[in-house]
């Protein structure tokens, strides 16, 4: 049985960054199961980022003895941070393993982390990618024992004499159970269990510092024992609430901001029963009838990264300078590797305010016309790396687009079809009449479509 083109488009928009009309039409004769399989199988490979190596940046102390001053060191860190960021953006634009990258973006936000060490940020990101589809327990262990997370959540300071609760709290509040499903006492007790979880300052390998660990009895989620950190994580994984919490977040991410409680509970049962097998869960969503229901299509607001990556995939934009990509992310409110806090980006409607919407509506026509991108960014805080490094006013960021190819692709296509590929929701009938009435060329038509608010949806 053939699959409707609009289902294929929807699948690729949500589990990837879109698909061309031509490719969608080629898939049409296949069954949905086959299409989903192909899509997911393309993500079996995992290619990590490698912009920074462990010895790329000298430690502050060594840098000083090598005669490097703080300013030069900062500059170096910023350069690597920029490369790391833009390498990922380019990978998002070019990879065939789209589901893996989509899920890596999910974990990037779920396990939000922000450090002035691009190497650690890269390595944590590679863990998110490598274990993107694994059993969640495996991912959680790898993240929890990662130098980036241990440092970010101050577990280096979590010692028997002075427990630091930061990691234990976020583990439960943001990574697994969600607020209201544990007590303050649970936070205190589990923090003790994670004392001594540390890392080697040279290799960044996980290290357990026995001397700092509290081996005494703890009471956690009504269980009692001489728990270590591993036990705590295992107990958390035993709670069905963890499956529910994760499924609710993934439902909102892949399906609809407004969650259907009944479906989320079904997914949570399934996820729990399958030992948190993320691969199985995502395939199940992609194969469900309800995923393709009209109310779940074209109703989500693109994240800035979805917006940027999709636009680049649709039009193969070439940038004269990498900095352009940074400036755009900042202007739109989502710079990769710089989440606003450990809770990540709030997403949904919060992406949109007057300033970001104006930019979103203007950006496609500016980029596609090699126009001037007049985003001004300010220098708030030199310690904050590339978040602030692009001080510039009204710079010209040159871009190049191969319009001939695009025009050939869309020339003979009906407006409805072009709209179905490019836009989230269909333009209203009246709007369509208006677009058509005054449109000279295919290029003009496309520019109009990508400048509609409908282009913000997917």
């Amino acid at each position: 049985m053939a699959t409707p083109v609009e289902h294929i488009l929807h699948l690729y928009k949500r589990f990837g960054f879109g698909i061309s009309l031509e490719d969608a039409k080629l898939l049409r004769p296949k069954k949905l199961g086959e299409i989903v399989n192909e899509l997911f199988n393309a993500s079996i490979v995992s290619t990590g980022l490698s912009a920074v190596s462990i010895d790329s940046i000298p430690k502050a102390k060594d840098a000083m003895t090598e005669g490097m001053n703080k300013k030069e060191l900062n500059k170096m860190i910023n350069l690597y941070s920029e490369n790391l960021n833009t390498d990922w953006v380019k990978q998002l634009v070019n990879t065939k393993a789209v589901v893996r990258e989509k899920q890596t973006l999910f974990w990037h936000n779920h396990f939000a982390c922000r450090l002035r060490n691009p190497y650690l940020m890269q390595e944590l990101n590679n863990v998110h990618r490598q274990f993107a589809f694994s059993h969640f327990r495996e991912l959680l262990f790898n993240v929890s024992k990662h130098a980036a997370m241990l440092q970010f959540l101050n577990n280096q300071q979590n010692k028997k004499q002075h427990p630091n609760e930061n990691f234990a709290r976020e583990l439960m509040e943001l990574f697994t159970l969600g607020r209201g499903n544990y007590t303050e006492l649970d936070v205190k007790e589990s923090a003790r269990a994670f004392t001594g979880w540390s890392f080697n300052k040279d290799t960044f390998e996980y290290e357990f510092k026995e001397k700092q660990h509290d081996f005494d009895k703890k009471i956690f989620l009504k269980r009692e024992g001489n728990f270590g950190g591993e036990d705590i994580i295992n107990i958390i994984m035993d709670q069905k609430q963890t499956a529910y919490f994760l499924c609710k977040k993934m439902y909102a991410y892949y399906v609809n901001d407004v969650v259907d409680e009944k479906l989320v509970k079904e997914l949570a049962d399934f996820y729990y029963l399958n030992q948190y097998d993320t691969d199985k869960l995502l395939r199940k969503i992609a194969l469900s009838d309800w995923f393709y229901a009209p109310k779940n299509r074209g109703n989500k607001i693109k994240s800035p990264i979805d917006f940027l990556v999709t636009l680049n995939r649709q039009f193969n934009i070439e940038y004269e300078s990498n900095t352009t990509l940074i400036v755009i992310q900042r202007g739109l409110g989502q710079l990769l590797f710089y989440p606003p806090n450990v809770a990540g980006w709030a997403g949904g409607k919060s992406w949109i305010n007057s300033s970001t919407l104006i930019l979103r509506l203007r950006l496609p026509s500016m980029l596609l016309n090699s126009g001037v991108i007049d985003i001004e960014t300010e220098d708030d805080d030199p310690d904050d790396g590339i978040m602030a490094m692009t001080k510039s006013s009204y710079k010209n960021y040159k871009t190049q687009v191969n319009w001939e190819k695009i025009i050939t692709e869309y020339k003979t296509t009906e407006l409805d079809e072009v709209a179905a590929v490019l836009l989230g929701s269909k333009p209203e009938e009246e709007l369509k009449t208006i677009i058509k009435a005054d449109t000279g060329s295919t290029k003009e038509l496309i520019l109009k479509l990508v400048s509609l608010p409908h282009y913000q949806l997917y």
Partner: protein
Amino acid sequence: MDRRDFLKHSGLASGYFLIPSFLKPLETLGINEGVTKKRNLIVIQFSGGNDGLNTVIPYNNDIYYKLRKNIGIKKENVIALDNELGLNPAMTAFKELYDQGYVSIINNVGYPNPDRSHFRSMDIWQSASSSKDYISTGWLGRYLDSQCQFPYQAIEIDTNLSLALKGKKLSGIATKNAKQLFEETKAPYFDSVTSYIKPEMLDEDNLGYLYKTMLSTTSSAKYIYDTQKTYTNISEYPNTEFGRQLKTAATFINSGLNTSVYYVSLGSFDTHVGQLNKQQDLLTQYSEGVSALVKNLKEANTFDDTLIVTFSEFGRRVEENASGGTDHGTASNMFIVGAQLKKKGIFNEAPDLVNLVDGDLKHHIDFRQVYATLLDKWLMADSTTVLNEKFMTLGFI
């Protein structure tokens, strides 16, 4: 410019969607309907963590000089305020405001379990959360949610909108240049789509939300542009970016814009290295900028309705570091400038340099008490709703 040229430059043909605008956004929304003009609040953010101890200097405290052998401001250079505290020598213009009774200095402002990361601490100050909570809206954004209808009611004089002005239902608007903002929303595609929007499209789904934001942005941009045009600001300001931003704020205020909140930033105060010159330069910009602003507002009789509040995400370590600078600290001072102060001068006790926590100052006043005071007593809002908690207000206004 012919049609083809325009298409080349802006990406879109000029004048497309040549249909009568059967709905004019302004009329639909009633841009000033239900907006009662409250007073003006100007928030000035010192980004990067300003060193409070070299701003308001405990110049008779030996510990200060002992811990700051290199960067301590010499007693003879301090602009004395009383026999304990004095201002940084860069702040002569600010001292004039102080002498006129327009300044209240609140010492030792901070929050429990302080975070020394710039971005986290700024997040805490802007969202008004505790250090263990994460809130994705700002305190001024929630003020908008609680009693405003339009983005223009809170304006950030900047290109990007800060978290502080982002609400759940309503966010402020960022602009450095009213004309440019207006022109961006007048671009052919934006303009024609907004004139096509009908009331029934403004529902709760995401497309409805996008339409609504487009409409309120267009209306706000036009309203701001049209209103500020009516006032020509010939007042002189320091020729700095900060000076220009303050001038823009004053122009908006003096033109009678129905805006309650203005937000301006100055930075960067992150003085790990070579602090003295860097901070003095910034404090000069601040002091002269605010002085010009007050003068400008007084000329137009708007100073009585305006309060200017200055904060930074944290102060800096009491002891200097080895590079002629200071590292990230905790509690610091805030400045309140206005003509309606109930307590003028130094509001509370000077920093205690003896009882430090990890080398940092202890806070005595929670910054959310300052916010609660501004919300309840100045903006006539309900601080408990906005801050999600009841904080004791203070007596500076």
